[in-house]
């Protein structure tokens, strides 16, 4: 029974292994990609089946270490969707991986598997294992090009990731030391028993919480744990960069929400402590990310900093969760909503970049000059993605920001929202610069920018998704609210 609950994960693992075996005999990357895609679709179908079957209730398995609830399923489907788009978009890029295309697709599936587990685990050790599964796959993916720059990026990512893992593990140890528990549900009870009132803060618990924030902060690329981002984003293969910027970040937020909202929600001083901590980190992350993105000349690096800033906006939502009463679900659901919109927009931007850099072999913003004439539809999609990242209508980003910010204002974070809005204005400058260069610059050559049908499909899906969520936000909003309902105490 317990094994059945993980059918989406098992099936994905089976497909990952099968892709590696298949790649021994089949060299055609289209076959490998379609096979991986099939794995994703099977897994997603099973997950959707679970969602309809459970219809809101939760399934607790493996001695309360894993749970299949609507929150986990929301993220599982989000990760699978991202993986599907990534596989489609990778087809144009895959020739650069030469012999190891099979391994590439297998690693994408395995890291997705890790993220799916991250969203479903409710026990510290299990969380750690899931996180490592994700990370190790990603370390390899970052260095997949075997160029000096990529290898350097992978090594940096590995070493800093190891440090972050150590910090996280240390934090978990502190929490275990204080409470004697590793299961999130037991931790909250233990905290209530040991520190039942607001009489005094416990340094050990605070230290543990801070270390957890640091460990997860590395995943979600929050300042001051973001130093790896620019170098890794620039060095990694472009599809992997896109993957890192959306899936890995979303997984980080899934864990953050699950852990902090399940284990550290009472008593008030704990919740307010991490709430305020996230609020301050949000302000710093947004500001640093946006300000440093301004002078960037490389679009991947620019989007790297932009993703730090976006993590800042998301942390506004997390801070709201810490400060909100337990019955309020605007803050929590807004994070889920924003993540889905952000995933589509950012992925769309990276897919467009893959197409352009395949032709121009450059990631410099200056080389996007006149792209509007060379590839009008591609430029249109990239423009819409950037508009969404700024947070302007009619794109998804607008509703997402509106949602997060209005939640924050309702719970006394007006100062943070003011900072966030100012930051949005700053960010418009560097996003719009790319748009301006594309549409008003002179093309360097008259050559068109070719792209495969798969990439076009992926880009169409992200673009329509961004527009759909921006114009008809109701569906996703209801899903997000249903998914975040599980935390009602």
């Amino acid at each position: 029974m317990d094994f059945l609950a993980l059918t989406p994960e098992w099936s994905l693992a089976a497909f990952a292994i099968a892709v590696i075996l298949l790649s021994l005999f089949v060299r055609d990357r289209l076959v490998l990609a379609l096979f991986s895609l099939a794995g994703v679709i099977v897994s997603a179908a099973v997950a959707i089946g679970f969602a309809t079957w459970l219809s809101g209730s939760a399934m607790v398995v493996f001695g309360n270490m894993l749970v299949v609830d609507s929150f986990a399923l929301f993220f599982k489907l989000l990760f699978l969707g991202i993986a599907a788009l990534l596989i489609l978009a990778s087809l144009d890029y895959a020739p650069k991986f030469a012999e190891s295309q099979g391994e590439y697709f297998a690693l994408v599936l395995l890291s997705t598997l890790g993220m799916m587990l991250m969203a479903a685990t409710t026990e510290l050790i299990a969380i750690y294992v899931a996180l490592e599964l994700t990370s190790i796959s990603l370390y390899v993916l970052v260095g997949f090009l075997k160029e000096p720059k990529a290898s350097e990026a992978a090594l940096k990512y590995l070493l800093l990731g190891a440090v972050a893992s150590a910090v996280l593990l240390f934090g978990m140890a502190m929490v275990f030391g204080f409470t004697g528990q590793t299961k999130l549900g037991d931790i909250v009870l233990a905290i209530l028993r040991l520190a039942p009132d607001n009489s005094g803060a416990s340094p050990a618990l605070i230290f543990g919480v801070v270390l957890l924030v640091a460990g997860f902060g590395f995943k979600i690329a929050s300042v001051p744990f973001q130093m790896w981002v620019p170098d890794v984003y620039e060095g990694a293969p472009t599809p992997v960069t896109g993957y890192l910027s959306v899936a890995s970040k979303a997984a980080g937020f899934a864990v953050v929400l699950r852990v902090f909202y399940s284990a550290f929600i009472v008593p008030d001083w704990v919740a307010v402590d991490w709430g305020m901590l996230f609020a301050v980190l949000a302000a710093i992350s947004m500001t640093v990310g946006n300000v440093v993105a301004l002078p960037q000349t490389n679009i991947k690096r620019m989007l790297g900093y932009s993703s730090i800033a976006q993590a800042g906006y998301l942390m506004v939502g997390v801070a709201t969760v810490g400060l909100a009463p337990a019955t309020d679900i605007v803050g929590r659901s807004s994070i889920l909503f924003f993540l889905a919109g952000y995933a589509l927009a950012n992925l769309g931007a990276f897919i467009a970049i893959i197409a352009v850099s395949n032709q121009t072999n450059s990631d410099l913003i200056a080389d996007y000059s006149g792209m509007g004439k060379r590839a009008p539809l591609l430029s249109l999609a990239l423009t819409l993605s950037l508009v969404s990242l700024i947070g302007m209508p009619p794109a998804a980003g607008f509703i997402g920001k509106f949602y997060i910010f209005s939640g924050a204002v309702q719970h006394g974070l007006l100062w943070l929202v003011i900072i966030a809005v100012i930051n949005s204005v700053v960010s418009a400058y560097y996003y719009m610069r790319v748009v301006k260069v594309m549409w008003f610059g002179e093309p360097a050559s008259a050559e068109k920018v070719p792209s495969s049908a798969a990439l076009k499909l992926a880009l169409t899906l992200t673009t329509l998704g961004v527009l759909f969520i921006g114009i008809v936000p109701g569906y996703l909003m209801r899903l997000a609210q249903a998914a975040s309902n599980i935390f009602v105490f």
Partner: protein
Amino acid sequence: MSEAAAWLVLFLPLASFLIISLVIRPFFNRYSQWAGYLTILAIGGALVLSLMALKATTGHEGPIGWDPHSWITVGSFNLRLGIYMNSLTAIMLVVVSGVSLMVQVYSQGYMKGDPGYARYFAFMSLFTASMLGLVLASNVVMLYAFWELVGLCSYLLIGFWYHRPAAAAAAKKAFIVTRLGDFGFLLAILYLFFHQGAIAGQGLNSLEIPDIYRAVQTGLLGTAVLTWLGLGIFAGAVGKSAQFPLHVWLPDAMEGPTPVSALIHAATMVAAGVFLVARFFPIFEAAPATLRLVAVIGGATAVFAATMGMVMNDIKRVVAYSTISQLGYMMLGLGVAGLAVAREGHVTAEVARAAVAIGIFHLFNHAFFKALLFLGSGSVNHATGTVDMRLMGGLRKVMPWTYITFVIAGLSLAGVWPLAGFWSKDEILAVALKEQPVLFALALLTVFMTAFYIFRVVFLTFCGEYRGGAPGEHGHDAHAHGKPHESPPVMVVPMVILSVLAVISGFWNVNGAFSVFMGEGQTKGFFEGFFGILAHPLPWIAMIVAGLGIFLAYLMYGSKRISAERMGERFKPIYTLFYRKYYFDELYENLFVRRSLVNGLFAGFQKFDTNVVDGAVNGLANVTVATGKGVRRWQTGQLQLYGLFMGIGIVVIVLVLLFAG
């Protein structure tokens, strides 16, 4: 009538807009005639559905209740989209889609060969969709969005020939002047939004129109609140319907293609202001002070615009002033009818609807004959290449169809029994006489002037000898014909259809059926109403006054018994005052725009902007970029430094939380 069908009314023209602008224009511009066919097809479909809506609302008590759909829900804020379908909605739908269809057919001929053919029909489709959406909206925010969209389309279409400086300037003027009124409307909406607490307790949403009605009826909103709301809404209506003192944009808007004038600046968009007042009539009804303002502004505008219409030489401008004047008439009708109802003391939704019926009936009739007048001017303009009536004359012989239809529309406008204009004008006069003699006098004076100016146009344009046509300096309209000739059938047929409507549309209320449809009153026998009305003195007075106007026009411009030049000389100060439009353009331009705004306020702003704002912004930008470059320097690529940074971060956070927290 299902809800899906009602949405389709809006979506058909919208789809036409999307297909033309996203498919036909970029990829198949060679086949741009398809843009016209598609538009006609879509709007024809919308007309059929509108007629179904009319049928469905006939005899239907109150609105057809469709629940609005939730669009954005964040916390307590709930924005919904929906359709409010009642008799007012249905009548407006028919007017908009009906006139639009005629105009689109006519445009096939008028716009033939224009390089912007596809663009023209894309904008026309978008306009029709927005106008239908404005009428259908069940929610103030949705209504406002479409309200702004029709304004945008009007801007785009007035400036359709954007290479002409006059057209570009007129488009800008129309947009800015209406924006002043829109601001009032926006304030009213914001007022509703920020005071939703007052009615939220009753489970009502202050942005939903039916909920606003209920709040007004149950007295949840005080008279002061309602007065402010009414004033804000009326400000929006004044801007859109070109009422005094925001009337200055409409005559200039004639720079657009003539079918655009017929659709937007005669039948539909400018009537949206009247519609808006009618839509929120319960608010006005509950705050009689606003009704008085509506009546006075309407009556004053009616006379004021008519005086200017008497002296213009540009045929389209005469018709434009006539439109302003007639819109004033509708406002007057709404205002005095509302006051009459309010005086009787029992303000219920049903009685309010009877008052609305009087203003809207004139809107309904006016839409047809005024659109026809515009199409006729367009036809004349198409033939002669000019809009200056001094260069026309004698067109009766070469353009018989245009002549006949124009005269019918003119008689209808003048209010001659039994044409359409007579019936609705008579209602307004009757209620004005009962309510407020001064306003009645103004209205009667307007009747005289209306008859005069429209027959001045008839005599100048169609009678006498042809005076040469275009001198050849005009851009598009100069088709460089040798001799004027009748327009092609594709233009004549819509005019004939409209002329039939200009005769019969008024029959609807001969027996009181229109009032019944709008929710009040009872019917009588058709013939009893048709001839019985002549037993009353008022219709005779109005018609004699109109006849005097026509006769004077004949003496001056037909038989030339009285020299128009000499009249002009004798009354030179007044003539000049009318001809220079009371110097309103100069007043606004010099006093407000140039003196006060540009040299005063804006100069001050500019100083503030360059010295303070720019300084701050540039300073901030410089600091931001410098910080960016500075922080970027931390990104050395040195792994140890990165690790150190994380460590320092953790330590700082822990210290702050433990000792400062």
